[in-house]
C-alpha cells in the first residue's frame, strides 16, 4: 500500500507554546486513521500543517508526493472537513457544489454521487447558513468528495452534531472508506467515535504522539474496561473480592484487566454475575482503554 500522507518529525511553535512537537505519522492508501487527543493536544494544528495551511517550524510533510506548504499539487485529490465546517454563504449549495466541481475538475456524475452519498438532495436550493449543523457537515463532506479524494482530512467532524447526526456521519465516513477506498484521517477527542471507525489510531497529547497502532493493540496495551452496572458499589465489592484492581467513577467502574487473557476472563465473570442477578448495562474496552492512555499521560 502506498503512502498518501507522511509527516516526519514536524514541530510547530506558537510564541512560547510548542503546539506540535516532533510528530511523525503516515496514512496509507485506503486506511482510516483516527487522531485522538484531548482539546489542545495539537491535532488541528497537525492537520493544518499536513494540508499546508500552516507553516511548520521543523520537519517534513509529504502529501501526494509533494510538500503541501510549497506545492499546491499536493492538495489535488485531498478533501477536507473542518470542525466548524464553513463554506461560502453567498451561493445556494447547488451553485457552490457546481463551482467547486469546476475547481476540482470533477464530473456531473461525481457531483450527483456526492449529493446522493450525503443525502443533500432536498437542500440544494438553500445557502450554507440555512442548513442545520448536521447538514452543514454533510455539505462539507459533499464538497470534499468533489475533490475526487484519495484522502479526506476530517478535523473533529462530529463535534457540533447531536448523537443521531454523529452516528450517521460516522457511518458515512465508514462507508466511504470501505466502498470507495478513500483514505481518512479523522481527529476527535471523543474516544468511542474514533474507536468505532478507525482501524489505526494515533494518540496525541500536549503536542506529542504518545501512542500509535492498531486500535485493538492500543486498547490491549491499556488493559482496562469500563463497566456500567445498575449497582456500581455492589459490583465493585464483588470484583475486588475476585482480585481486580477497581475504581468507581460515578456510575461506572473502571477495572484493570489481568494479563493477556484478561478480557476473556472478565467477560466470563460478568456473564456469571449476570446469571446470578447482577445487572450489567455495558462493558467498554476500547473507549476505556484509550481514555486510560490519555489519563496516564496527563
Amino acid at each position, binding site marked *: 500500500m502506498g503512502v498518501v500522507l507522511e509527516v516526519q518529525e514536524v514541530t510547530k511553535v506558537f510564541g512560547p507554546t510548542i503546539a506540535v512537537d516532533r510528530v511523525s505519522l503516515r496514512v496509507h492508501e485506503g486506511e482510516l486513521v483516527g487522531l485522538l487527543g484531548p482539546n489542545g493536544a495539537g491535532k488541528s494544528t497537525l492537520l493544518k500543517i499536513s*494540508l499546508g495551511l500552516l507553516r511548520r517550524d521543523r520537519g517534513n510533510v509529504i502529501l501526494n508526493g509533494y510538500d503541501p506548504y510549497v506545492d499546491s499539487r499536493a492538495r489535488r485529490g485531498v478533501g477536507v472537513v473542518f470542525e466548524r465546517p*464553513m463554506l*461560502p454563504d*453567498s451561493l445556494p449549495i447547488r451553485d457552490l457544489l457546481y*463551482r467547486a466541481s*469546476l475547481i*476540482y475538475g470533477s464530473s456531473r456524475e461525481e457531483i450527483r454521487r456526492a449529493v446522493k452519498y450525503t443525502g443533500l438532495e432536498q437542500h440544494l436550493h438553500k445557502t450554507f447558513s440555512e442548513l442545520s449543523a448536521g447538514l452543514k457537515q454533510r455539505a462539507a463532506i459533499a464538497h470534499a468528495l468533489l475533490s475526487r479524494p484519495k484522502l479526506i482530512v476530517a478535523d473533529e467532524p462530529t463535534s457540533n452534531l447531536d448523537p443521531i447526526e454523529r452516528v450517521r456521519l460516522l457511518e458515512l465516513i465508514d462507508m466511504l472508506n470501505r466502498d470507495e477506498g478513500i483514505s481518512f484521517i479523522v481527529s476527535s477527542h471523543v474516544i468511542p467515535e474514533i474507536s468505532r471507525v478507525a482501524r489505526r489510531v494515533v494518540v496525541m497529547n500536549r503536542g506529542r504522539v504518545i501512542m500509535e497502532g492498531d486500535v485493538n493493540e492500543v486498547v490491549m496495551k491499556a488493559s482496562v474496561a469500563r463497566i456500567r452496572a445498575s449497582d456500581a458499589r455492589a459490583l465493585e465489592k464483588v470484583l475486588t473480592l475476585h482480585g481486580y484492581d477497581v475504581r468507581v467513577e460515578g456510575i461506572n467502574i473502571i477495572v484493570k484487566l489481568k494479563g493477556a487473557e484478561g478480557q476473556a476472563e472478565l467477560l466470563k465473570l460478568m456473564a456469571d454475575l449476570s446469571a446470578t442477578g447482577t445487572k450489567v448495562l455495558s462493558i467498554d474496552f476500547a473507549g476505556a482503554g484509550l481514555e486510560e492512555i490519555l489519563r496516564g499521560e496527563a
Partner: protein
Amino acid sequence: MSLRTYYNLLYIDVSDVLRPPGLDVLVLLVASLGSALVTIQPVTSPVVASRIALDPTLFAAALFLAVRGSAGMAYLIQSGIINTYLTYPIGKVPLAVLLALSRVFIPSLLVLGAPLLILFLLLGSVMLKAPEKVFGMYTAFFFQASLYGLIFLFFALRSRSQSTSGLLSVSAYFAYTAIALILPAIGRSTGNETLTKVGEAMYLPEIIYSSYMRASVESWQILLVPSLVTILFIFVVIYFWRRFEVI
C-alpha cells in the same frame, strides 16, 4: 492549474463580496445620485460629467471596500472560509491575487462603473464626445479606490478581526484624505511647492481632471497613486504568501 480553476474560485469569492442586498442598495444609491447630479445641470463635458458622478461614488466605494473588502476578509479568516479556499489545489500567490481581485479591484470597478454606465445611457451624445477622457477619469478613480482597498485588505490580513479592520480602514481613509488636504495647505502657506504638489498628487482624479482642463501637471504627479497601488499590491501578495497563517 487552469484558468477555469481560478475563475471559479474568483466567482465564489466575488459572489460573497457582492452578495445582496449591500451591493444592490449601494449601487442603486450611487448610480441614481451620480446620474441625478448630471441631469439637474446641463453637463456638456464628459470629463466634468465623470467627475461629478464619480466624486461622491468614490466615497461610497471606499466605505464598501472597508466593510465588504476588509471586514469581509476578516470574517473569511475568522469563520474559517479562508481555510476552505486554502484547501483547493491553488497556490498561495495566485490565491492572494484572486483575493485582491475579488475584494478590491472588481468591487471598485463595479461600484465606480455603475454610475458611468447610466451616464453613457442617459447622456450618450455628451459622453461619447471624448470616451477616452471618460476612461481616463474612470481609471483615475479606480486607482484611488484600489489604493484605499489594498490598505484595508492589508489591515484585515494583519488584524484578522472584523471590527478592528473596519475601524482601522475607516481611520486610514480619513487620515489619508486629511493628509492630502493638509499638505497643499502647508505647502501654500510656507511657499513649499513640492509639498503642495505631493498633496495634490495624493488624489489622482483631481490631477487627471486638471490635466484635461489644461492645467499644468507633472508626470510624477500622475504616477504617484498608480505606483503606490502597485507597491501595495505586491506587498499584500507577499504578506499573504510569506506571513499569513490561518487561525
